[in-house]
């Protein structure tokens, strides 16, 4: 961080803390005007699309889950949908429900991680959760309890919390039993209470006066439920398209300072995915308790202040707990764990709502099931351009702030998006330096 006499200053954070993955932030101010904003992604690329080529059509769920340890279920689910689409297979209702239940576990785990461990310390003025726990022990214990409930749900349905083993193309290896779910139920009843208490806590925080009126929201939507494991795309500008048209609506371009691509919506430009977009486009799809919690928190049907994303995440925590309990209470044994997915040549598309926003997969398969081509567009790379625009708009009227304070608040503005940098960089190809 530097502060020169000529009115120019540079705000630099070399290692962004409390985000998943490795990124840096650089904001350049010249003559009192923000001249440049860069969220620099230096997380090493891992080339998943390249290494998927030639793999069998049953392998993408396990392989792509390794893109992200925080939202592996999202990768497994989008991969399954895309492969099943390519092979012309529809899974039975009990498989869809169990997928939604597993995904609820991931939402609970991931949102709690962000709300309590990554984002809340910004609002309460601590460097991290451990320091925060010295003064707010009960609050932190509530967060850890919620996170544990999400992990326990993933561990039961998926086998483990990170890179679950029970998911396969066509369904699951083994269906969870009603008896197992009944045993887990009390944990989720408590989690619903904890999630409601979380909404109350975060609704009382102080938020920067900052609205992003111009941004386009993009999320999935379904005929009945809040979108998690399925849905079709909608935009706040009135656009609507199925996953198979994603490539026609979204283009990506490569910018010099980043190991991640920036996404752009046709005729619009930068857009936003994630809790704010999902909530604002699906307020009428919230289950009853979550809707009440949102109303009580004063959220309204549309939220355009990214600093309030912590409240929306808390409402989605209620949603995930409520949905999980609904599925558990309606569960009966006797379904088939999976249906066969015979290979055939074709292209398939899949999109689901990862905790950070919609995650798109496309696979082209050969007749014997070999993956010929893969495309994966994670939520964070769709949000990167908007995060930079946010920073630009946020910093300009706050240039009189002390540099340390301004830097801290810029970091908070980045964390509003819960960026998952590990996800955003997985797919770039390479120049090779031989070792």
């Amino acid at each position, binding site marked *: 961080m530097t502060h020169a006499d000529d009115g120019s200053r540079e705000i630099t954070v070399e290692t962004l803390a409390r985000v998943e993955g490795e990124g840096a932030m650089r904001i350049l101010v010249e003559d009192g005007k923000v001249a440049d904003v860069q969220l620099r992604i230096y997380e090493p690329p891992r080339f998943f699309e390249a290494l998927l080529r030639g793999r069998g059509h049953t392998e993408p769920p396990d392989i792509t889950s390794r893109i992200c340890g925080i939202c592996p279920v999202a990768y497994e689910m989008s991969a399954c949908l895309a492969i099943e689409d390519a092979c012309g297979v529809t899974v039975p209702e009990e498989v869809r429900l169990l997928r939604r239940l597993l995904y609820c576990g991931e939402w609970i785990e991931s949102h709690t991680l962000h709300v309590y461990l990554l984002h809340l310390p910004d609002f309460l003025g601590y460097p991290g959760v451990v320091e925060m726990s010295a003064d707010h022990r009960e609050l932190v214990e509530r967060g850890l309890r919620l996170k544990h409930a999400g992990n326990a749900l993933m561990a039961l349905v998926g086998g483990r919390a990170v890179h679950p083993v029970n998911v396969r193309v066509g369904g699951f290896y083994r269906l969870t039993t009603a008896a197992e779910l009944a045993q887990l139920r009390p944990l989720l009843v408590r989690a619903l209470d904890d999630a409601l208490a979380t909404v109350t806590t975060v609704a009382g925080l102080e938020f920067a006066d900052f609205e992003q009126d111009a941004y386009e929201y993009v999320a999935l939507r379904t005929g009945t439920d809040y979108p998690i494991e399925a849905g079709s795309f909608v935009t706040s500008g009135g656009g609507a398209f199925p996953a198979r048209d994603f490539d026609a609506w979204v283009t990506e371009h490569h910018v010099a300072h980043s190991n991640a691509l920036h996404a752009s919506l046709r005729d619009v430009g930068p857009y936003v995915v994630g809790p704010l977009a999902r909530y604002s486009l699906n307020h009428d799809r919230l289950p009853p308790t979550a809707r009440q919690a949102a109303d009580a928190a004063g959220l309204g049907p549309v939220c355009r202040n990214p600093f309030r994303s912590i409240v929306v995440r808390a409402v989605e925590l209620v949603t995930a707990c409520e949905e999980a309990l609904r599925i558990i209470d309606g569960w009966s044994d006797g379904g088939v*764990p999976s249906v066969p997915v015979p290979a055939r040549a074709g292209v398939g598309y899949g999109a689901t709502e990862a905790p950070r926003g919609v995650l798109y997969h496309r696979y082209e398969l050969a007749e014997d099931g070999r993956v010929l081509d893969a495309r994966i567009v994670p939520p964070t790379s769709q949000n990167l351009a908007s995060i930079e625009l946010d920073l630009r708009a946020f910093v300009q009227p706050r240039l009189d702030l002390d540099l340390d304070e301004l830097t801290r608040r810029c970091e908070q503005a980045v964390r509003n998006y819960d960026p998952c940098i*590990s996800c955003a960089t997985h797919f770039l190809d390479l120049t090779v330096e031989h070792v």
Partner: protein
Amino acid sequence: MTDVEEPRRRPTLAVWKFASCDGCQLTLLNCEDELLGLAGAVEIAYFPEATRAVVEGPYDLSLVEGSVTTPGDRERIQEVRAASRRLVTIGACATAGGIQALRNFADVEEFTAAVYAHPEYIATLDRSTPISAHVRVDYELRGCPIDRVQLLEVIAAFLHRRKPRISGESVCMECKRRGNVCVTVAHGTPCLGPVTHAGCGALCPSYDRGCYGCFGPAETTNTVSLARRLRELDMSERDVARVFATFNAATPAFAAESARHEAAAPAAGGDR
């Protein structure tokens, strides 16, 4: 027990990330019941995923996640080693190069031919290598991802200056102790359990699935014999080659077995 007179300085813990998915360091944050206790027993001195605060090194114990894949990281791991009294790798990336080590076997010319708009913006090495290929490592914890209980055992062991109590046996042993029916014997399901390092608690067989090897090779393996059995179970040469070439593809035992079957597989047009 000793040093009761003087308040003892808490040992410092640092967590470092290289090329990885974050899942192994997340496993530390997934220790919900132990996290606050751990933070009392050690000083979390460097852990960017969890805190902005940074305490200067050297560090008593460094946990390293991820593999080395860039010129910058090749330098950085030297600095991490120099700043660490003890260095433990956590997970398949740091211990074996991870899934991204599949590039080590790719035709590099062909790999680079699939270029993006501006490959000149990206700096990367042509191989993904484990931490031990670059610096001395005090202990390697296996798994993709690591097991939470094993992680706590390793941290406790290093804090008490003892050897971690972690067995190098195969998943089969854990599976038997868990009382599972063998998925291969009973159902003819292909399973890598006989050659895979224990640590997961035989998860996959407990979910009616064959082990897919995410903990890498056990201390002693007979992959040739297992591969023969997999072929008898109707896996093609290509499938056998693939099943050894996943998250621990660069370990010598799995790489060799995969290569044997890759060579035996009929050439498929356009296969890579």
